[in-house]
């Protein structure tokens, strides 16, 4: 929360400012391994995506298609295969060979081997606060002139949240089942400083009448939470003038891989926006 405050301030300080796109002669960087793995408590096929970083001015992704991937936990080992249906857009994606579900409280290790180097990460699946209910409230419309025709609504969330443990969550919002994705915005949440109930927590995204609004909560370990909050800082850096110097997000991978091994329990709910 402190960080978002500081972003507001930096934005204020820069509001007197103008901006200009500049071309810079950046150094070539050595490519880094990037791993994105997600395991939830849902009974489904899970995926791991493996790629390499690209140069600053390059476009696209640089998928890794020959990795050897396995997930182990609870005495089981699950193997993954690269792009089983050979879909072009799924290059670099590995799917579990069987359908399985992670268990809350269990610890899972992801092993990715590429060209003889092992990248490994271990994390625990935490309990997720279950959503009691959702409701709708009229939101303040910043562009006032179309107030009458264009009413906008916030989704309010009600949930119980155990106070005795330190818990971390990620929120995702969906409009008509489609993920609302902004390139610089991450909704993660720590319950430090919070009371035991979330009583009408307003959604940071807005909906129009008739839309289906959905909220998903992912439980995070502290390490996963730090990855996301570091990532948010990196995506929103002002270059180190007021904000800290940009830095790569921390994660639990060995051998210096970028990305995250996310192990999360999920809860979700939906509401039709009808005032």
């Amino acid at each position, binding site marked *: 929360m402190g960080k978002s405050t500081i972003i507001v301030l930096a934005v204020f300080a820069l509001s007197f400012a103008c901006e200009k796109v500049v071309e810079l002669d950046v150094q070539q960087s*050595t490519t880094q391994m990037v791993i994105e793995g997600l395991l939830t408590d849902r009974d489904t096929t899970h995926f791991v995506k493996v790629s390499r970083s690209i140069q*600053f001015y390059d476009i696209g992704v640089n998928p890794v298609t020959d990795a050897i991937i396995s997930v182990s936990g609870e005495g089981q080992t699950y193997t993954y295969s690269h792009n089983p249906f050979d879909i072009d857009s799924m290059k670099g994606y590995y799917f579990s060979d069987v359908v399985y579900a992670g268990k809350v409280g269990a610890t899972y290790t992801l092993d990715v081997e590429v060209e003889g180097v092992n990248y490994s990460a271990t994390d625990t699946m935490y309990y997720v606060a279950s959503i009691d209910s959702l409701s709708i409230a009229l939101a303040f419309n910043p562009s006032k002139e179309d107030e009458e025709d264009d009413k906008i609504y916030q989704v309010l969330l009600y949930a119980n949240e155990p106070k005795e443990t330190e818990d971390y969550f990620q929120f995702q919002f969906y409009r008509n089942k489609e993920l609302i994705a902004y390139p610089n915005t991450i909704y993660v949440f720590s319950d430090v400083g919070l009371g035991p109930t979330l009583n009408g927590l307003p959604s940071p995204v807005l909906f129009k009448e008739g839309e289906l609004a959905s909220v998903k909560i992912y439980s995070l370990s502290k390490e996963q939470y730090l990855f996301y909050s570091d990532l948010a800082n990196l995506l929103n850096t002002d*270059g180190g003038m007021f904000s800290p110097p940009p830095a790569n997000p921390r994660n639990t991978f060995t051998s210096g891989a970028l990305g995250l091994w996310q192990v999360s329990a999920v809860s979700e709910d939906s509401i039709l926006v009808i005032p």
Partner: protein
Amino acid sequence: MPNRHLFKKTLLLVFHFLFVIGLTMAQSDKTTLNGYVRDATSGEELIGVTIYFPDLQKGVVTNAYGFYSITVSRGTHLVYYSYVGYTKIEKTINLASGTELNIDLAPAVETMQEIVISAEAADANVTDLAISTEKIDLRALKNMPSVFGEPDLIKMVQMMPGVITAGEGTSSYFVRGGSADQNLILIDEAPIYDPSHLFGYISVFNSDVIKESTLYKGGIPAQYGGRLSSILDVRTKDGNNKKFGGSASIGTLASKATIEGPIKKDKGSFLLSARRSYADVFLKMSGNENSVYFYDVNAKVSWKQSNKDRFFAAAYFGRDAFDLGNVFGFNWGNATGTFRWNHLFSEKLFSNTTFIASQFDYGLELKEPSLGFEWTSVINELSFKQHFNWFISPKNELDFGYNFIYRRFEPANFEPTMESSIFTSTQLQKLYALDHAFYIGNKQTISTKLSLVYGLRLSIFQNIGPGDVKVYKDPQNNIRPQVDRVDSYDKLESIINYVNLEPRLSARYLINEVSSVKFSYNRMVQNVHLISSGTVPLPFNTWSPSSTYLKPQIADQVAVGYFRNFKDNLYAVSVESFYKKMQNVTDFADNADIFFNEDLATEFRQGDSEAYGLEFQLKKNRGKLTGFINYTWSKSTRTIPGVNLSNQFLSNFDRRNVINILAGYSLSQRWNFSATFTYSTGRPVTLPTGQYEYQFYKPSYISERNGYLLPAYHRLDFSAVLTPLKNKNRHIQTKWVFGIYNAYNRNNPFTLYARDKEVNNASTGEKEFVMIYLFPIIPSVTFNLSF
């Protein structure tokens, strides 16, 4: 161990000095002349006036309170009182016994267009003992161009050799490779923790009330301590004790008014000055719900009972407040109070007793049913200073004293503002510290050519209770801090102590009448640490005392300089070179969470820093054209274990080449023109070298801290001051100041960062760099009147 070696040498000097005192005490065919030197029109005491006995070739200058004392042989002597900008007084006095003599110096009537820009002796550049010290020229400051036409002391400080800025629009400055928090800023001896108004567009110093201001970059006298890199000592006016007067000005950004006058003629005086911005008034008038303003108030009362006892009380209050749409509000401010008692124990022993209180606080408020909160943070400082100035003989002038500081830090109080808020009330633990400093310093004239100032400062720091200290298994583990045990401490119980000895030495050797060489060494110790990992501190950064996990920062600096005046002191040239080595400079882990973190200690990373450089200054002191050219070449690096893979990196504020030029031209009695030009190498920034994909995000890949330089910064400003001729016959004096900021409208880089390239709000999948720049060409007008 070169430091230990130096320490021994310093001790030897102290013994030598004690021996000299013994000799002096034995003499009795001598007598003492003492008193205050004042401005004849306002009664303000003058700092740095030369009192000189030409037949004896002995002299002294008035101290920071305008007092002088000199011991010479009995008899009839000629004595001069001289101060630049004032008519010199020559007196023949018969000194049979101790004599008290207060002198009123009349300001010199300005001969046609003869402007003298500095308020110090004409040859001070060469003869002064001070090295690495900049007296801020207040007259030039008032005519100097500035961004909104508001003269700003800090902007002048930022032009001095060895001083670097982070860019325009900030009140922070960096001295000889030190960070922004390593500057001690004093107003009437009280510290200002954040000198910024409007996030630094202007500083808290109202130029109308400043009497004298000095920046010490090195060769710092033993009576000052507590910060590594510089001391900015600002003294305000006492107020006119002869007649009532006042001034007012209406500017683009702010307006201000000052009144001053006698409480009792020649004995007591007061001064009250207030300044306020009024952008919010226009915003309200235009129906805007946002509000932004700042104000400050300076007040002072002085009572000069006699030469023996004088009392002063000074206060400063200032605040900035922002309110965005009645939803989000924030504010910050400094408040300081100083009470001072000057007492003469004897004609040679001057005492200054000061009680100081200082507070800095900030607050943030969000008004919202479920997320509403109020966040406040406060630093309080109470301090007592007993300073003695002992004019032993013309050859030895001793300063010694004791300074006690109590500090309380409230890093964060967090309160939900509404019943329905999801937050609970939370506080971060308060921190307490005591500082004791004992110091002694002597100014000694060894011969007509060689003079020394040497001293020692003993700094005893205590981090005290009440409080709990977590003992971590690994104090650097900031991901899952593991607490072995928690040690509890009672009120005033010592948690950890740090004792440091700070030797100080400077020497001046006169080569001839127009040139000298100077040398200085000083060690400085700092026991407060700014919790900020950006380049420019925000008012919302907190401070921490030294503690179990934060060691005192220590700096050792040597400087040598060559000083030469030309053409009867018309031109003054100085060349200085410095080397500074700092230990335990405070930095933070990558991705540190410094805002509301109960395990903040795990984010601290301390390491070494090194800086060196060469500074060149050319000043023209008199004539139609006056001004200076300052050039600095310097380099500053840091090596912090755990930051940048423990590799050395350039400091955030490293700028290799900096040039500052100020030129004032007095065309006629009506028109005065000023121009400033500044150039500096771009400051280092951390830029990505690659990118990758994670979910739908495109994070940058960072390979090195501060691996790039921003484009160079340069800017030209003009101002013109119009003083109407009809002023001569009027009681009310008027003055217009016209300014043009950034005359050739350069887009100077403020900061630079990477972002996703977008076309019509849709990401193109590419990345780009965007440079932020602040002020385009800005004209301004200020109207001043005084009576």
